[in-house]
């Protein structure tokens, strides 16, 4: 029977929830890396026992952890004594080393971006928001970081190199952080075209490369953001999350700061599909594993009030790729619920029926084993949830 493994990153550690294919009884292991902010964990689809994790701290900075046994044990790639030696016999400890490429040879020496007050500000590495393992090679993994940049490791997370063409885009000096920092939070690898990658940055917008990361173009046509000086600007939009069904990589769904959007041409243009949503502000968005026109969002009241409307936690589902939305409420809090659901905190499994999962800043992880019809908490009292990913195991 199939199994499901849910990887939960929280403000104070990581938790791994496992169940069989029925998804009615769950075991929780953790906290892993207790006390640390675990921004994101994600498993390789090629080798499901290979899991990458972003561990960080305002005191001690960024650590990359890797498990090769499904989360039972962890290593910092390259840093256990003796595993990696430099020229002088000294360990190199590269796995948590994210250094922007400012060389004239391989990237523009771009050293500042726009700060909140409109002045230029140095790029400063802060943390890894998202880890995206390659769909073909378990040793290749991408990291989306704050301040916005994209890095890649091809040796299992040991050494990281920036794909500096993104940050060196002509618009780079004009990118500005959102309130949560200037984070590159979404990395989508096109499963049918290894040279195509989508990323999204708050608050620069979405970008795409068609040459493996050498050059990038903004893909924000059709976005309208009334809170920026030019609402239809090429860059400057606060994109919260982008999702894709791997069977249809040219179709993208976006939860923007306000507005739910879709693109049917790989991001070349977008149309709004907020339709009858009670509010189209939110952070998460995801796509059903088997029905590429079925999408999920969690409406949040507003940009100033990051909690559900009327204290009722609701998922909204559209089976028509947007515009027509239905409220999903069975099993979710009916009152006094003032949590948020952060941008990387929703995921789906690939069982039949499709399982849908999301985590809240109140420490609950909710799951539906029937594509959203019914929900139940599978963890109730975790620290604030930063991210949720799901692995469907044989």
């Amino acid at each position, binding site marked *: 029977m199939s199994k499901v493994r849910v990887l939960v990153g929280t403000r104070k550690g990581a938790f791994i929830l496992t169940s069989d294919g029925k998804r009615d009884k769950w075991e929780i292991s953790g906290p892993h890396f*207790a*006390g*640390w902010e675990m921004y994101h964990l994600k498993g390789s689809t090629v080798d499901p026992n290979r899991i990458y994790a972003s561990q960080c*701290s*305002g*005191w*001690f*900075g*960024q*650590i990359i952890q890797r498990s090769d046994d499904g989360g039972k044990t962890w290593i*910092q790639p*390259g*840093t*256990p*004594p003796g595993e*990696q030696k430099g020229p002088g016999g*000294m*360990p*190199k*400890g590269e796995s*948590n*080393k994210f*250094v922007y490429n400012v060389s004239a040879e391989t990237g523009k020496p771009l050293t500042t971006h726009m700060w909140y007050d409109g002045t230029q500000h140095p790029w400063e590495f802060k943390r890894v928001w998202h880890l995206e393992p390659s769909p073909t090679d378990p040793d290749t993994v991408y990291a989306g970081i704050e301040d916005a940049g994209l890095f890649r490791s091809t040796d299992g997370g040991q050494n990281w190199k920036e794909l500096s063409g993104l940050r060196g885009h002509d618009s780079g000096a004009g990118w500005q952080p959102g309130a949560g920092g200037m984070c590159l939070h979404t990395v989508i690898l096109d499963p049918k075209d290894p040279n195509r990658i989508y990323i999204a940055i708050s608050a620069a917008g979405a970008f795409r490369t068609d040459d493996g990361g050498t050059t990038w173009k903004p893909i924000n046509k059709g976005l309208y953001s009334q809170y920026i000086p030019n609402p239809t600007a090429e860059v400057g939009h606060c994109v919260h999350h982008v999702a894709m069904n791997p069977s249809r990589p040219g179709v993208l769904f976006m939860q923007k700061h306000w507005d739910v959007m879709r693109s049917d041409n790989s991001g070349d243009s977008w149309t709004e599909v907020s339709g009858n949503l009670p509010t189209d502000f939110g952070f998460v968005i995801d796509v059903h594993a088997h029905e590429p026109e079925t999408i999920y969002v969690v409406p949040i009241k507003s940009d100033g009030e990051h909690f559900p409307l009327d204290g009722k936690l609701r998922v909204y589902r559209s089976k028509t790729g947007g515009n027509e939305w239905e409220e999903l409420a069975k099993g979710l809090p009916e009152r006094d619920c003032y949590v948020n659901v952060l941008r990387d905190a929703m995921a789906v499994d690939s069982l039949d029926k499709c399982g849908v999962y999301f985590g809240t800043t109140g420490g609950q992880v909710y799951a539906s084993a029937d594509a959203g019809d019914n929900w139940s908490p599978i963890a109730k009292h975790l620290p604030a949830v930063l991210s949720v990913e799901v692995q469907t195991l044989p």
Partner: protein
Amino acid sequence: MIRVVLPGHLRTLAHVSSEVQLEIVGPVTQRSVLDALEAQYPMLRGTIRDHVTHERRPFLRFFACEEDYSLEPPDTPLPEAVASGAEPLLIIGAIAGG
């Protein structure tokens, strides 16, 4: 033998339970202590000082013999009591609630 006391999270990361002891050849300074610490515990690279600039991370400070050495140049000798192992170098994180 130099003694260094690490913050709790870094002890966990380095798989040590109390203070660590380091052998240092030459002058005992912040830089030489951190170089030796990172060589012996490479998982700590980047957690106390920046990988490239070697600047101290802002929420950490260095104390020894009840004095704050955080703002001293990295090559300034640490007190003889630290060099002799009589007193440890304390690496201390800022206090935070929550």
